[in-house]
């Protein structure tokens, strides 16, 4: 979706302002927000793609007015409600009022090290051979899906070169919506700065994205 998350090339946000010796957390609630988000995800009711889509579905004013941990928590409330774990009545009361759906699993403290060390690999076998190879010229699709996609607007309808064929990966555009993993080959595609930004582009700039096969057509 052309949502607030799709930031590449947007203007007006000001300087980056890196913070010297930045702490990992700026308030104690951020620690709990990280942990609650990971523990809730570990219930196995939604995928990382669905959680990304929940975050980018915040109203743009809300998204831009929120810190990243605030975005996580707001989206987490959406996910928990959607999957029947939390109700509006629970949230209004600040305590458990309604019964919850049954999770696939509950992450216990003793299992955290193993779960974090294992992660959640997203590579999957793909039945068909890769359509493109390194060096192929490709053009990204020009599309504007209303659902989740990982092809940023700045890189749509652009010609680039395949630099590397990666693995097969879960396709987020369907997986985010509970429509299956449908794995596809992923390619690193590199574009000249001028192809993307046109007049005035930095002549030394190249930008790459990692693109699922269905985002690409032969150039």
């Amino acid at each position: 979706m052309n949502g607030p998350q799709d930031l590449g090339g947007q203007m007006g946000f000001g300087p980056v302002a890196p913070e010297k010796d930045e702490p990992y957390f700026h308030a104690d609630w951020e620690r709990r927000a990280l942990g609650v988000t990971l523990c809730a995800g570990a219930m196995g009711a939604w995928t990382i793609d669905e959680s990304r889509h929940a975050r980018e579905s915040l109203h743009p004013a809300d998204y831009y007015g929120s810190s990243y941990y605030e975005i996580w928590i707001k989206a987490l409330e959406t996910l928990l409600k959607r999957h029947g774990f939390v109700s509006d009545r629970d949230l209004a009361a600040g305590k458990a009022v309604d019964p919850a759906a049954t999770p696939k699993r509950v992450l216990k403290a003793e299992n955290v090290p193993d779960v974090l060390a294992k992660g959640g690999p997203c590579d999957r076998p793909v039945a068909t051979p890769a359509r493109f190879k390194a060096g192929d010229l490709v053009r990204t699709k020009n599309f504007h899906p209303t659902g989740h996609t990982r092809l940023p607007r700045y890189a749509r309808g652009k010609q680039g070169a395949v630099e590397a064929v990666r693995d097969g990966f879960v396709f987020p555009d369907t997986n985010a919506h509970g429509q299956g993993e449908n794995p596809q080959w992923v390619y690193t595609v590199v574009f000249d700065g001028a192809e993307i930004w046109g007049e005035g582009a930095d002549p030394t700039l190249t930008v790459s994205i990692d693109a699922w096969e269905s985002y690409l057509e032969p150039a």
Partner: protein
Amino acid sequence: MSHNHNHDHDHDNELDPFAARVRALETILTQKGLIDPAAIDVIVDTYETKIGPRNGAKVVAKAWVDPDFAALLKRDATAAIGSLGYTGRQGEHMQAVFNTADTHNLVVCTLCSCYPWSVLGLPPVWYKAPPYRSRAVIDPRSVLEEFGLTLPDTTKIRVWDSTAELRYLVVPMRPNGTDSWSEELLADLVTRDAMIGTALAREPA
């Protein structure tokens, strides 16, 4: 804010609204048996004390001193990094990109906050915020200048937008004058920002 207001309440029990919101959510999920608060403690401790940019610095320093490791890191970064014991969440599919005399690499996630947690830990706020995510792909030179890094006009800049599940680690160039340095000393020159691409490795003092 003035504190001379005329009413009675217990400030010790006040939380700012968002802290209260997070606490309520944790309370609800705990009461329903959906999460284990002790698991949250372990997660926080892991990312506050165990997994951070020191991991990545050791990877880079080893690549500087060990050509075989550097070759493996280039070919199969997940395996190379895994051989040092760094695996797991948001490091499942790693790619290392090497700075050269001609080309400087910079990593961003314009669409969210994708970041190689297994080697760099949790991302800094600026990495997740709109100014960096919007400008890194269109005007990286001015972004780098805000980090105090001015590259020669002739240096090519390659920006890697982490749009899929690959996570990128920049391998900065080894500083001159460090030929006799041990891997351990070299690792101290490798900062988090150098591995994102918003800085170079530190020069020896």
